[in-house]
């Protein structure tokens, strides 16, 4: 039993953290929000680092770092709140590899892993980066399907730094488990979003003074921060478990993914909302970047289908398992 990231996985996170801090600062999101376009050079760098194929086997042109590698990377994507089709492409590739037919793998993985094509991810009515994608992996409850060359209708969501669309067109089913893998990946991004919201808040409340002392010395604020940590670490424990299950114990992926989805949805809502509140009036402005995190969290939670359905599933799992004893 060793519940911690390996040195390799930790290194992926470190590199991503550093690169994204420089190349994808939140200040860049203001531009993306206006144009609705991603920074192509940023995506180019991600591709050159092999990120789209992080979870893909080397024989398909990827890095072979599995779902845990994907989770670590997406955590950093969430931390940066970066605008790029990485969640969609890297996750769709991982799902196709693990749950697609052999012909799916042969057809899509090399292009996706090489960054020559991109993929969309999400559901029929809420697909991230599906517009212009070569393929989309769409989920609906326990089912997942692959839609080649998806016909899309783009729309703006409250997260102007990610491109969403609805998707039409025929799909081809992926094996059971693909939807769980997709949600585990989204949960990992949410963990990073929460961590960033916490870090920004802690830095702010140490700095900001009121009534002559740092606001972080008031228990109303400091205990709120402690609760943000509790939720963030809870989501992290569950998201890592789900990533591990995807790599090492697929039988447990369904429950693990439901745990990760519910924990991440709950954390995403509470932690990013708390970050705005702890920032006070500043947190409510467009200039203070904390709102990007709140908005992305809302969309990620919607892609997860909300916490509730996962909690219901978990309750039934717990009840049926206990009854079967």
């Amino acid at each position, binding site marked *: 039993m060793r519940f911690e990231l390996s040195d390799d996985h930790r290194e992926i996170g470190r590199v991503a953290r550093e690169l994204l801090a420089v190349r994808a600062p939140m200040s860049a999101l203001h531009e993306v929000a206006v144009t609705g376009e991603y920074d192509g050079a940023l995506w180019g760098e991600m591709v050159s680092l092999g990120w789209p194929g992080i979870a893909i086997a080397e024989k398909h042109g990827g890095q072979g770092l599995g779902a845990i590698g994907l989770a670590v990377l997406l955590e950093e994507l969430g931390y940066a709140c970066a605008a790029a089709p990485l969640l969609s492409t890297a996750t769709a590739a991982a799902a196709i590899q693990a749950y697609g037919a052999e012909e799916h793998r042969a057809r899509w993985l090399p292009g996706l892993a090489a960054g020559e094509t991109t993929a969309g991810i999400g*559901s029929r*009515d*809420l697909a991230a980066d599906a517009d212009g994608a070569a393929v989309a992996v769409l989920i609906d409850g326990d089912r997942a399907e692959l839609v080649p060359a998806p016909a899309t209708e783009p*729309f*703006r*969501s*409250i*997260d*102007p730094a990610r491109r969403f669309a609805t998707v039409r067109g025929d799909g081809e089913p992926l094996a059971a488990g693909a939807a769980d893998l997709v949600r585990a990946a989204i949960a990992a991004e949410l963990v990073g979003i929460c961590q960033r919201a916490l870090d920004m808040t802690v830095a702010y409340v140490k700095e*900001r*003074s*009121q*009534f*002559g002392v740092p606001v972080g010395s*008031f228990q*109303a*604020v400091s205990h709120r921060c402690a609760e943000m940590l509790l939720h963030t670490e809870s989501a992290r424990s569950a998201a890592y478990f789900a990533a591990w299950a995807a790599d090492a114990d697929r039988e447990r992926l369904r429950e693990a993914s439901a745990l990760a989805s519910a924990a991440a949805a709950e954390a995403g*809502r509470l932690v990013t*909302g708390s970050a*705005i*509140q702890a920032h*006070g*009036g500043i*947190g*409510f*402005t*467009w*200039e203070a970047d904390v*709102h990007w995190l*709140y*908005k992305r969290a*809302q*969309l990620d939670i*919607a892609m997860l289908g*909300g916490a*509730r359905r996962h909690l*219901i599933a978990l309750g039934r799992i717990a009840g049926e398992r206990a009854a079967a004893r």
Partner: protein
Amino acid sequence: MDLTFSESERAFRDELRAWLDSYDPGSEPAGDEDAHYAWRRDFQRALADGGWAAVHWPVEYGGRGATIMESAIFFEELARAGAPLPANVLGLLLAGPTIMSWGTAEQKDRFLAPILTAEEIWCQGFSEPDAGSDLASLKTRAIRDGNGWLISGQKVWTSGAQYSKWCMLLARTDPDAPKHKGLSYFLLDMEQEGVQVRPLRQITGESEFNELFIDGAVASDGQLLGGLGNGWKVALTTLMNERAGLAFFLQVRLRQLLDALSAEVAAAGMLDDSGVAERLGEVHLRAEVLRLTAYRGLTATEKYGQPGPEGSLTKWMWSQTNQQLTELAAQLLGSSALRAADRWAYELLRARGNSIEGGTTEVLKNIVAERVLGLPRAH
């Protein structure tokens, strides 16, 4: 205890309803903030023409001398009719009553009438970037200059500043006096070079609020309200008036929003799901409790001049419930509620400000703990 309206209250309400029914505000302009503001200004002018602009003001100043309960009914009916808040709401609710309490005869003559007609719009310049909820630490300075004052400093969260002729401004006139004591209350003319307004863009993309950059703005002695060094007391009058009637408008807006969500949920057949019904029931409960508690506060105010313990709770209840409601909508209505153009998306984002604006929930809890429960000052 009587939870029905009295005959005179009903008469007041029916007369107002009849007027509101007869008034066609035209459709609400979408997207363009200036047009939206002009629409609210037109509405106030019509109200003023009908004698409805400031029902709670004494008759001598153009009001109706309405009771507190009638004043609440006024806002309740406005919201029920889908009417907007009058453009000069801060003038009507805050500046007017404060000037009536503290102003000289000249000040009342000069300032009150144009408030009523929305001819001169007012904004409130209390908050500062470094002071937050701590008004005693305001830094904006007013320096004696001949017969008048030279004012410099920065204000923030001034809503409607871009449309305002006047600003209720708190500035420090004596830097050596203890924190509360060196403040004075000015009626600052916004139309001068020394006052720059910069819109503050919000999480929603709109700019409801502004920053004020004040650099050598001038004010005469006639624009000092309530006397030199008395700004803290005058400001308390403004703050006490802040939510008296407005709370009812907000409470009814919350109910309207909840009814809209309830209707959508019912139409989608989701009420059969006990979990959904329970969540909706939670918000319904809170909205009803808010309404009832607000009525308790009004009754106490009518009788004792101020609300009881429950009066400190309604703003807090409202912000909590409105946030819960808008999050529930996002949860139940799914991705459509997160489209940028969707009403629920706007409400979700806007609601984040509810627990910050007009006193953060943390500050409200401090106030409840100290003033209502008598606990020692928070550490």
